[in-house]
């Protein structure tokens, strides 16, 4: 009976108690990425190797000789996550070690822009690893410059007056087009949903590349009071701006709060999300209408996709 009691004692809210994020790291107060990584590592556990390119998390680890992350981390050049992870996976295979999960943990820049080639190549080669993009929607680590994942209208230091003129690059769908076994979206404000998705990705070991994309609010970059990270994360989903879904072995399914948002009347208006963030202070009414239109169009596409299944 003792082992059953031990298992119960080791969880809080159904999540493992063990922390792999060390307190006192260099993340900003209220960092959505740190919150996400904390739960991602709970799902992955000890037998994990992280490959981390240049991004916020490179700095979050803190200074030598300490590291703020409790699993092995191979820091890597900005564009090379997919490739370096492929190398680690190949070495493990060559050595016959099959119980270690290799995970690329990269920002939106290192995924959608400079890192897209290596990721696409790794996915096409059916590299057996999990790639997780934590998306704070700009090159935050270098000071909030615009990336391909920056949303329409956002002010960044390289779109400081006019805001970004293009909509967000749809990385999850790009990865789905690679026909990989698992694509999922998540966000920091729904940690249990994120936890379950990472666990699912881990289950699909041996089937190729698994891709997760986590919307990670950033207090200094999105310009909001750090206490609002979870609230803003949830609002992104509740307005329908960020859609939670999985494409599990080709089968599309909405998750969590997104499930009931196919009905547009159930979606909160995008203003509720936008008005909390200083990066959207430059939006005109027309811009807001454009963003709403983009959200509605995304949902129409989801609907079409679900109909054809």
């Amino acid at each position, binding site marked *: 009976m003792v082992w059953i009691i031990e298992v119960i004692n080791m969880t809080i809210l159904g999540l493992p108690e063990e922390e792999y994020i060390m307190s006192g790291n260099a993340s900003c107060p209220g960092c959505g990425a740190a919150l996400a990584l904390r739960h991602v590592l709970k799902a992955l556990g000890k037998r994990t190797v992280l490959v981390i390119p240049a991004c916020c998390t490179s700095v979050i680890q803190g200074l030598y000789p300490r590291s703020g992350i409790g699993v092995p981390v191979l820091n890597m050049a900005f564009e*090379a996550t997919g490739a370096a992870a492929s190398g680690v996976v190949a070495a493990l295979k060559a050595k016959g070690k099959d119980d270690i999960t290799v995970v690329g943990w990269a920002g939106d820049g290192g995924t959608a822009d400079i890192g897209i080639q290596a990721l696409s190549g790794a996915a096409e080669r059916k590299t057996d690893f999990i790639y997780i993009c934590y998306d704070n929607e700009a090159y935050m680590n270098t000071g909030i410059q615009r990336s391909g994942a920056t949303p329409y209208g956002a002010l960044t230091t390289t779109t400081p007056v006019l805001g970004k003129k293009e909509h967000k690059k749809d990385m999850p769908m790009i990865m789905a087009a690679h026909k990989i076994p698992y694509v999922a979206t998540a966000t920091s404000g729904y940690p249990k949903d994120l936890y379950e998705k990472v666990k699912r990705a881990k289950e699909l070991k041996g089937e190729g590349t698994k891709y997760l994309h986590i919307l990670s609010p950033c207090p200094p970059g999105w310009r909001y009071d750090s206490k609002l990270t979870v609230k803003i994360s949830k609002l992104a989903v509740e307005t329908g701006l960020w859609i939670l879904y999985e494409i599990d072995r080709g089968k599309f399914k909405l998750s969590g709060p997104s499930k009931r948002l196919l009905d547009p009347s159930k979606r909160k208006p995008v203003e509720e999300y936008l008005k909390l963030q200083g990066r959207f202070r430059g939006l005109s009414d027309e811009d807001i209408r454009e963003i709403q239109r983009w959200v509605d169009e995304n949902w129409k596409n989801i609907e079409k996709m679900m109909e054809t299944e």
Partner: protein
Amino acid sequence: MGKVIITTGNYSAAYAAKAAKVDVVAAYPITPQTSIIEKISEFIEKGEMKAEYIRVESEHSAMAACIGASVAGARTFTATSAHGLALMHEMLHWAAATRAPVVMAVVNRAMGPPWNIWSDHVDSLSQRDTGWMQFYVESNQEIFDTIIQAYRVAEDPEVKMPAMICSDAFILSHTSQPLEILSEEEVEDFLPPYEPPFDITDVDHPVTHGNIVWPEPRGDSPVGYMEFRYLMHQGQLNAKRKIKEIVKEFEKKFGRNHGDLIEKYKVDDADVAIVSMGALAAQAKYVVDLMREEGYRVGAIKLRVFRPFPDDEIREVTKGLKALVVADRNISYGYKGISATEIESALYSLEKRPLVLNFIMGIGGRDVKPEDQRKMIEAAFDIIETGELTKEAEWYGLLR
């Protein structure tokens, strides 16, 4: 005596990777390296070589994958040329600073534009500051033997620095010569099992590699970045000694010696010697023999290892010489031939040193015939007479 076949330089490199029992190959095709990786693919798919081959989508990814594999416990191999090597540049720095003992075959090819697939050494010499050891070889047998030796040096615990073995495009890569293949058992005897610089897959003792290090000792850290760079430098300096030991051991075991850091040919009683890198070093020996028959006191030096630079050996071997002809199949725009600048700097501390004539030749694969090398040597004898030496490098063979 192992199996002797007639084969190309590129296939020789593939046979060496196979004999060294590499665990992971990550490579991207580029002329004229392609047949190396094609041969390796064939070995693997036929079951003759047990390795994981990652068909990466660029050379930058090739080196990143080799680094990842190297620190996860795999002996790694890759190959490239010219633009592929240039694309890898960032990751060459990364591999060296990770102390990942990756071994790479570089088929020296001219940089574009314009496109040119023939040989010169600008591509690899442009990478001389990255921390990679560099070998320049003159024959297909030397490609094979040097790759084996390179694994031994690179993986040595006192070295742990990556190495590139450079061979001339088409002159060696696509030219068939006799090759004695060593068996995997023979090589296994010569190469200890692979030890990574650290094991990133050791989840019971997790480490983070590469997070921020201050410039100076500060906070918890008794050392700064500079100390780690110093260690890399020491690794290369240790390699100088190790290469000599390993070459001797290789000769004892397998009966062949292509030179260690340099190879001297009839230099001891010479007045003039010609320094070459790569395939032209072989031709230089032929020219020396012809000129000796005519009574010239001439010798040849093969600059075999460019990094770590054999400054002691250069000072030693040029002691009795009146002039040194440095034939560079490269140029550092705005100054002179790269090996000339390094050789001159090595000679600087000598009170008595030979005159150095620098010729820029063979750029973009322009052919350098024995008569051309002969003319360069004759120029050196003339200058000994007249004492008139131009400081600039002379471009040999323009408009011909």
